[in-house]
């Protein structure tokens, strides 16, 4: 494997390019029009345009990406996550083009990509699943029929996209009257995100934790699961903070849940990297939720607690190497790691996206800090894609140490020109329940709800006095420097509109 094309953009493309460099393999980027000067394009050895800004015109265009594979002479393709990562046609197209798809087989993607088929695999592997429907509910199934099925599953329930992931096409429904609009929204989002509007129903476990198990599987049948990840801190079903290990998982439970994960992977004939997601109920029982047949956004925390480079192992497995890791060591965390997903969103206006030019950027450094970013100072955050600009990971000997370090790293993080979710993470880190690891998947939405739109990070009086001093200095010195022009040019109209608009 001499040259790898990365069929993705943003931080994950950069992450994979770094893995290529770290293995002295050449890297090839693809890009849409607005991504011409994106970081992944600048960092790759080669780069090819694949079309217009909407994903359907570029990053989802299998034909154009295969064309870039041919032009570059790449002998392998890494799909990252999102876009074509869980698309079996793409994996098959790579196979047909004679290049290695760095991921599972198209068959495994098809099998586990259908959330309903995946449930069957788990049941066969002897792993408990959340009660729900076993068959997909496509557009042909009427609202009335779904209502009838929902009655059997019982309320509250979850509506989920069969092809789903990342919280898209997912809705909670607490009573029958909400079902119709939730069904429409979920189908519409699922269709636009995955090109498949089918959904299924699952009983809602009331206050579960979201626990997931990363695993690697080689072509000789070795499956190695890793220390679990705790992903209960979600906003509208999207993970925003992850950590490893989970404070809710004892070594004994770790044994059981990682064994269950490995059984599901073996049952599926799975190869390469994948993640099994579980719901952990308050009583300690756990249920198979779904499998992600790809690299996960939050993979770095596992890398930090085990010392393993998962992306390099994906590549090594894809080129036929056998897993030589010590399975026992992969279940013993070396440290505690936390990740915050930094989004270009304004937490003070209901997390509205905040695209635009990144006028200034200073990134934290030093011991126990890793920043996996897809941007640079001067880059433009486009409106067409996921608004995550960076993943900030910290680790330390224990959880309080890792959290203190995250607080420090967030204080060092400076982003000018766009709004980010950094103040939101500062607020979470001060929360007593969070610090005590007392939470479930409803935690953030409940806590945010309780704020009633109050701005985050309200300052104490001392802070306000110092801020007043800063204003005095600005008035006296006429701003920091010749910044007027820069400011005028880069504060985009929409930000202005957002702050004056009806959302406030």
């Amino acid at each position, binding site marked *: 494997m001499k040259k790898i094309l990365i069929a993705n953009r943003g931080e994950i493309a950069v992450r994979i390019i770094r893995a290529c460099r770290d293995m002295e393999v050449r890297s090839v980027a693809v890009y849409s029009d607005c991504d011409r000067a994106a970081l992944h394009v600048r960092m790759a050895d080669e780069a090819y345009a694949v079309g217009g800004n909407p*994903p359907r015109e570029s990053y989802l265009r299998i034909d154009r990406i295969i064309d870039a594979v041919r032009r570059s002479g790449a002998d392998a393709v890494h799909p990252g996550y999102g876009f074509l990562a869980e698309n079996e046609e793409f994996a098959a197209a790579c196979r047909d083009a004679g290049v290695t798809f760095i991921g599972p087989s198209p068959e495994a993607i098809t099998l586990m990509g259908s959330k309903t088929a995946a449930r069957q695999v788990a049941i066969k592997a002897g792993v408990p699943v959340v009660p729900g429907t076993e068959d997909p509910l496509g557009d042909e199934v009427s609202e009335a029929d779904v209502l009838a099925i929902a009655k059997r599953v019982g309320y509250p329930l979850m509506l989920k996209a069969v092809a789903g992931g990342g919280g*898209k096409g997912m809705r909670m429904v607490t009573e029958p009257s909400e079902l119709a609009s939730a069904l429409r929204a979920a189908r*519409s989002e699922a269709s*636009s*995100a995955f090109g498949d509007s089918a959904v299924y129903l699952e009983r809602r476990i009331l206050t579960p934790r979201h626990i997931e198990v990363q695993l690697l599987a080689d072509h000789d049948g070795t499956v190695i699961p890793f220390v679990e990840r705790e992903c209960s801190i979600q906003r509208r079903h999207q993970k925003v903070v992850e950590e490893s290990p989970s404070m809710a998982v004892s070594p004994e439970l770790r044994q059981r849940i990682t064994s269950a994960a490995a059984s599901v992977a073996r049952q599926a004939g799975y190869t390469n990297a994948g993640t099994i997601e579980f719901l952990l109920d308050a009583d300690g029982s756990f249920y198979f939720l779904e499998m992600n047949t790809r690299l996960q956004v939050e993979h770095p925390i596992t890398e930090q607690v085990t010392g393993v480079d998962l992306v390099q192992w994906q590549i090594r497995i894809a080129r036929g190497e056998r897993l030589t890791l010590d399975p026992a060591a992969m279940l013993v965390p070396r440290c505690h790691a936390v990740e915050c997903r930094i989004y*270009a969103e304004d937490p003070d206006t209901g997390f*509205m*996206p905040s*695209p635009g030019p990144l006028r*200034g950027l200073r990134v934290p450094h030093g011991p126990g800090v890793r920043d996996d970013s897809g941007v640079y100072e001067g880059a433009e955050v486009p*409106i*067409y*894609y*996921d*608004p995550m600009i960076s993943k900030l990971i910290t680790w330390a000997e224990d959880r309080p140490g890792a959290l203190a370090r995250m607080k420090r790293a967030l*204080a*060092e*993080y*400076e982003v*000018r020109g766009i709004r980010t979710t950094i*103040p939101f993470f*500062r607020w979470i880190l001060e929360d007593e329940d969070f610090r005590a690891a007392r939470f479930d998947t409803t935690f953030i939405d409940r806590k945010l709800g309780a704020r009633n739109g109050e701005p985050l*990070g309200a*300052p*104490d*009086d001392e*802070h*306000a*006095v*110092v*801020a*007043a*001093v*800063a*204003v*005095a*200095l*600005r*008035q*006296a*010195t006429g*701003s*920091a*420097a010749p*910044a007027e022009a*820069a*400011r005028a040019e880069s*504060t*985009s109209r*929409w*930000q*202005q*509109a*957002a*702050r*004056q*608009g*009806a*959302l*406030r």
Partner: protein
Amino acid sequence: MHFDLEIGGRVRRVRVERQDAHYQVAVDDRVFLVDSRAVNRETLSLLVQDGDGSVRSVDASVQPRPGSSTLDVSVSGQTLPATLLTRFGARPAEGVASGSGPQQVLAPMPGKVVRVMVAPGDSVEPRQGLVVIEAMKMENELRAARAGRVKTVRAAEGQSVEAGALLVIVE
């Protein structure tokens, strides 16, 4: 130079005077001696000496919000809004009135209208959904700020809109 500043929930009287290489700044009855250096185009490194001789170090940037008299003041990475008041303590007029009058619901970002949930003449409740716009792969629901009646609907499903485009007017 002196002015009134609304910040942290209170109006404060601020006075600033140059003293050789430093500035003397008074905020109400507290007096500070400040040493300021520009470290990039937008950021000042401030050393703020208190009455007791202790010297705090903070990085600060002050950004006016366009079309408004509000300043976003960022101190040690935390941002808070401040409003410069006129000499007579009055607040200058804002670009958009927020408490009364018709609500103009504007597109907060470029995107695609995926759903229009109201029609002219509908009466709406506070926080009722009006239009859903998709941007950055997320659907964002724009809601009514107050109760009222829909006067105009300019948004159409499937339409691409620019930032600031007028979508709905609620009276």
